[in-house]
C-alpha cells in the first residue's frame, strides 16, 4: 500500500473508526457544470447508509467518485485509510461498487458467474454469493436471461459481495425488485455489514425499504450533503414543505433542492419547536424521493 497515501490516519467518529471520509469533494463536468460542490461526509465502519436525493442530483457521481472511477475536480476521498485517487488500485480493491446499469452474461448461469468472479479476483469468497443465492431461492443453474430482473440484480449484488469489500457502494440496487425481495435484500445487506464489518452506502429512492437496513440517511442536494441523520430523528423533526410558502417563524432550513423555478424550492426543515411525532407524518411522507414530485408542484404552499 502507498505509504504516502496512508500517511494521514482516518478520522474517527464518536461511534468508532470511519470506513470512508470525503473532504471538500467537488466534481465538475464540461457542459453540465458543477455536480458536487465542496461535499464532505464520513461513513462509520460497519454502517449502512442510504444516500437519498432526486434524479440528477449527483448520487451516482458521488458513488463513482468514491469508487475511484471518477476523478474529482478538488477534494479527497479516503477509503480504509487510503486516498482513493492517489492510492491506485489498493484503495479501489477494498471498495465494491455495483453501478446502476449492470448486467450479467445472459447465456451463462449464476454458478458460471461465481466461478468467473472467483477466477478473476484473488481472495474471492465464493461462499458468500452461493449462500446468498440459496437463501433467496435464486436458481444457480438457470441461464440468467431466464430468471427475473430482480433475481439478476441479486446475482450481481451477490457477486460483488463475494469480494468482501471494506466499503460497498450500491447505486439503486433494488429498482427492479418487488417490495418483498427488496426487504430481503436490504436485510441481507445489513446482515453482511454486521457479519463482515462492511460499510455500505446505498443510493436509493426506496426509503421505506432502506429504513429496514440503513442506520442513517444522507440527503444530497445542490451538490452537498444537506441532511445527515438517523431515521427516528428525521421522523421526529422533519417536515416537507413547499418553499414558496411563508416560513413558520423560527424554522431552520437544512435542505434545499432546486424546484420548478427560481422561486420554488422543496425544502426539508428541522423545526425543533414543533416536533412532528404523532402528527400523522409517516416515513413515506418523509420520503425524500417525493422531492422529485413536489418540486414540480405549483400554487399555494404545501405543508404537512
Amino acid at each position, binding site marked *: 500500500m502507498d505509504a504516502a497515501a496512508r500517511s494521514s490516519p482516518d478520522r474517527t467518529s464518536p461511534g468508532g473508526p470511519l470506513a470512508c471520509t470525503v473532504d471538500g469533494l467537488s466534481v465538475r463536468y464540461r457542459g453540465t457544470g458543477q455536480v458536487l460542490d465542496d461535499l464532505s461526509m464520513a461513513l462509520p465502519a460497519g454502517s449502512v447508509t442510504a444516500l437519498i436525493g432526486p434524479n440528477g442530483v449527483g448520487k451516482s457521481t458521488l458513488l463513482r467518485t468514491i469508487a475511484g472511477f471518477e476523478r474529482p475536480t478538488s477534494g479527497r476521498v479516503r477509503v480504509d485509510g487510503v486516498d482513493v485517487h492517489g492510492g491506485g488500485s489498493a484503495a479501489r*480493491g477494498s471498495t*465494491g*461498487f455495483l*453501478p446502476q446499469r449492470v448486467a450479467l452474461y445472459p*447465456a451463462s448461469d449464476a454458478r458460471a458467474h461465481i466461478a*468467473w468472479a472467483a477466477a478473476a*479476483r484473488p481472495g474471492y469468497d465464493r461462499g458468500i454469493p452461493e449462500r446468498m443465492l440459496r437463501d433467496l431461492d435464486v436458481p444457480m443453474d438457470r441461464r440468467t436471461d431466464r430468471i427475473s430482473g430482480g433475481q439478476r440484480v441479486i446475482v450481481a449484488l451477490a457477486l*460483488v459481495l463475494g469480494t468482501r469489500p471494506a466499503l460497498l457502494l450500491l447505486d439503486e440496487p433494488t429498482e427492479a425488485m418487488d417490495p418483498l425481495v427488496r426487504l430481503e435484500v436490504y436485510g441481507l445487506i445489513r446482515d453482511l455489514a454486521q457479519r463482515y464489518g462492511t460499510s455500505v452506502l446505498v443510493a436509493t429512492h426506496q426509503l421505506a425499504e432502506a429504513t429496514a437496513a440503513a442506520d442513517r440517511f444522507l440527503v444530497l442536494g445542490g451538490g452537498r450533503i444537506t441532511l445527515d441523520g438517523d431515521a427516528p430523528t428525521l421522523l421526529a423533526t422533519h417536515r416537507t414543505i413547499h418553499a414558496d410558502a411563508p416560513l413558520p417563524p423560527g424554522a431552520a432550513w437544512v435542505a434545499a433542492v432546486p424546484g420548478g423555478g427560481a422561486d420554488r424550492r422543496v425544502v426539508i426543515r428541522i423545526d425543533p419547536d414543533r416536533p412532528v411525532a404523532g402528527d400523522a407524518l409517516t416515513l413515506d411522507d418523509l420520503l425524500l424521493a417525493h422531492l422529485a414530485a413536489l418540486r414540480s408542484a405549483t400554487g399555494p404552499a404545501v405543508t404537512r
Partner: protein
Amino acid sequence: MTALARILGRQHRFEIAAIALFTVVLVLATLIAGLRLRELEPTDACVDAWLGLGPDGAPCAIAAWLSLRNGEVGLLGLAFLAAPFLVGAVAGSVLLAREIELGTAALGWALQPRRARWIAPRIAAALLLVITTMAAIAIAGRFLWSAADPAIDPALSFARYGLDGPLLIVRGVTVFAIAVLAGAIVGRQLPTAIVMLGLTIVLWLAMQHPFPWGVPTTWVPLDAQMTDARSGGRAELSDPDRIVGYGFQSPDGVVRSFTDAAASAPAGLDDDALDAWVRQQATEVVGIVPGAEAGSVALRESLALAGVALAALAGSFLVIGRRRP
C-alpha cells in the same frame, strides 16, 4: 482462464460459430482444390508448349488444370484476400463493445478494479482465436498456391503476395486490434460494426496496394517485363514482380509521365506523331519491385502492421481505463 473462456465463449458464440464455419469451409475448399490441382498438374513440357516456350507436339492436358486454376481457385483467392478482414473485424468489433453496451463490463470492473486485468485476458483469448484461425487459413493457402503456381517460391514472387504465410496472420491480427479499439471507443455494437465496415474498406484498399516499404523501385523497359520468365527451370504463369509505376525514361535516366515527356515536343504534331516522337526520345518503362524482394517486403509490412496492432491494443487499454462504468 477456463471460467472466463466458458463465459466469453457463450457470450460471443454466434461470432465464434461464424468464424469457425467460414474457416472450416474455406480450408476444406482449399484442400479439395489443392488436391485436384495436383491431380491435374501438367508436365513442365506441357506448360512450356502451351506458353510457346518449348517444342510443340507433346500430348498436353492443360485445359482442365487452367480452368480450375483460373476459375474456382481464383474465387478462393478472393476469400483469402477477405479472410483477415472478416475474421479480424468480426472477432474484434464485438469483444469490448458488447460488454460495454450490455453492462457486463460494469460488473467486471466492479469485481476487478484493475481494468488492465479485465481487458487483457479478453484480448488474449480473442487473439488466440484470431491467430489460430488465420494460421489454419495461411497454411491451407500455402498448400493451394503451391499447387496453382508450382514454379513460384513465395519468398521470391509477388504473384500470391499476402495470400498465405505469416503476413496473412499479421493482417488478421491488425484488423482485429483496430476493431477492438473501435469497440472500446464507440462502446456499442451496431455503430462499431458500421465504423469497422468503413475502416475495412480503407484497410482493404491500403493492403491491396502495399507500399514497397523502403525497397527502391527498379525501372525496366516494358517489353522486357512482358517477357515470360522461368524459375527453377519451369515456366512461370504469373509475373513475380510488383509493378508500382509507369512512365518514359529519357537517356539521362529521368522517368517522366507521357504528358511531361511530350511537353518538349515540336508544336503541330498530331496524336500519332506525338506518340512516335515521345517513344523516339524516351523508353517506355515500368517501375517494379523485383520478385526477389517479396520476402523482404512482406517482413517489413508485417513489422509495420504489428506496430499498428500494438498501438491499437495499447489504445484500447487506455480508452477502457478511462471509461465510466
